[in-house]
């Protein structure tokens, strides 16, 4: 979905929140559009949960403006609750109800609920509809969390660290459910500290660290990741070296590397030369900075500036 022209779902300006003397949010501004899957990425303690809990109406802000569908969560919490579904970081259920009963119970709280069977199909729990909550696996319980959040047919869904603590297959289960939400046109705000999760799910993401947004954009182009130079790596048998005019540096014993401005030309030169001298390039590799590289750089920078700010 092209959401660049969609109306704004969430508008946040200069949001601040302190816990005692500890500033959890130091002026966060953000716009999230309708139909977007937006990921808020950041290390533990960065302020992700505080941020979403202010949008959800669980916490009150100290400063700034917050509007969700034009509603200020501090002033009209009830109006907001009917349009929003929330999956908290960890939260229990009545363990003795079954799956269908749990969804039906939460549906009954909303003015325009979505039919229970439809929801169970969306999260792939039809076969478990009569299973008690206490007998569900971790991944199934998380899917039920999402089902309950969908009960009121919300326009906006908050998912706070939906897969933290899960094994890889349970994570995949939950990811597929979240991916399917895109087809419903829901706006999804998801917090995570997993790069791959943000990359796999999000249309757009923001990196938050020490209470500030340090970067915002498309997962593929975040912080100019797409414009950074690719690196070509390979190694050669002992005593063989590429012609110096190619510009490869020997990083370690017989391991070569170059930051390539023209990847095709550099690879052509390299492979032609390798064929002519008869060496193989078995471990030839072209890398771009991963989202993780960019993320670690971004959060490290803020770490330093934060330390400086505290000192001064």
């Amino acid at each position: 979905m092209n959401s660049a022209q969609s109306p704004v779902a969430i508008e946040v300006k200069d949001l601040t929140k302190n816990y005692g003397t500890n500033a959890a949010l130091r002026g966060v501004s953000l716009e999230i559009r309708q139909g977007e899957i937006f990921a808020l990425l950041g290390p533990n303690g960065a302020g992700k949960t505080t941020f979403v809990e202010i949008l959800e109406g669980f916490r009150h802000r100290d400063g700034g403006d917050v509007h969700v569908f034009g509603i200020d969560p501090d002033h009209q919490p009830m109006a907001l609750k009917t349009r929003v579904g929330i999956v908290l970081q960890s939260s229990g259920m009545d363990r003795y109800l079954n799956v269908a009963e749990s969804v039906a119970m939460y549906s009954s709280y909303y003015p325009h609920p979505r039919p229970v069977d439809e929801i169970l199909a969306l999260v792939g729990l039809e076969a478990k509809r009569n299973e008690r909550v206490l007998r569900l696996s971790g991944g199934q319980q998380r899917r039920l969390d999402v089902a309950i959040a969908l009960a009121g047919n919300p326009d906006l869904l908050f998912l706070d660290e939906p897969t933290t603590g899960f094994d890889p297959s349970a994570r995949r289960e939950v990811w597929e459910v979240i991916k399917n939400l895109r087809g419903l046109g829901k706006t999804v705000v998801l917090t995570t500290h997993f790069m791959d999760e943000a990359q796999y799910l999000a249309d757009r993401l923001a990196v938050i660290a020490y209470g500030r947004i340090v970067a915002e954009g498309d997962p593929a182009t975040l912080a100019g990741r797409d414009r950074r130079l690719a690196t070509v790596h390979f190694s050669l048998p002992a005593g063989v070296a590429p012609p110096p005019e190619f510009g490869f540096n020997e990083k370690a014993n017989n391991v070569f590397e170059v930051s390539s401005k023209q990847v095709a030309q550099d690879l052509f030169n390299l492979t032609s030369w390798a064929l002519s001298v008869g060496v193989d390039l078995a471990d030839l590799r072209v890398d771009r900075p991963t989202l993780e590289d960019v993320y670690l750089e971004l959060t490290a920078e803020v770490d330093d500036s934060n330390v400086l700010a505290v000192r001064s």
Partner: protein
Amino acid sequence: MNSIAMLQNQVKYVNKAFWRNPASAFFTFAFPLMFLVIFTSLLGHHSIKVSPTRSVDLSTYYVVSMAAYAVISACYNNIAVGLAIQRDSGVLKRTRGTPIPGGIYILGRLVHAIFVSVILVAITAAYGTLFYHASLPTGWSLAKFLLMLIVGALTFCALGFAVTCLIPNADAAPAIVNASILPLLFLSGIFIALSSNAPTWMVWVARIFPIRHFALGMQAGFVGTTFNWMDVVIVAAWGLGGFLVSYRFFSWEPQR
């Protein structure tokens, strides 16, 4: 959905979860009935003075005492432990993120607890009538009995809500609830009748806390002792106090 329909619906789900949970079904429901059978079988043939001029079979005394205990168990214990566990596991916080008004949700637990209390009292009374020829209250004394029952149930629910404000986490819930109620049940003559030579301090404890007043009010209907409106007033005052404490301090989020 309007508030009444929402409340009915909520009670339905609380009820389902209650009977399926072995802990609540056993400790709240079966426990008072088990004590009823044990005490009446063990001590039923003795008699006890309920006023300077009247003696009744101890079995009748226990039918009333266990009815009172059943209400306390269904309201105070059930609500305090259940709600503390729900709060600790995040059920309450999840609910807070939905449009159901907090009052309706809480009222759902309260109505359900009163419903369980009424069933327990009915079973207890039926048991007493069938096996020990206890006479059931009728007419005006039945009305007063029911009034005491409802005021007591509301009060012990309110105290249950209030005590959850003091419970730090789910693990501490059964300990705090039992530590707060068990000694008072003994000191108020619920399990062992307070004789005329009970120590003064014990009599005062029984006078201050609501349990003995509640039991005496229930007893008036069953046994025909004088119904004392002061008992209702004292029980209701505790209920009001419990309500005010919970209104001020109740939290929907885990206390960490």
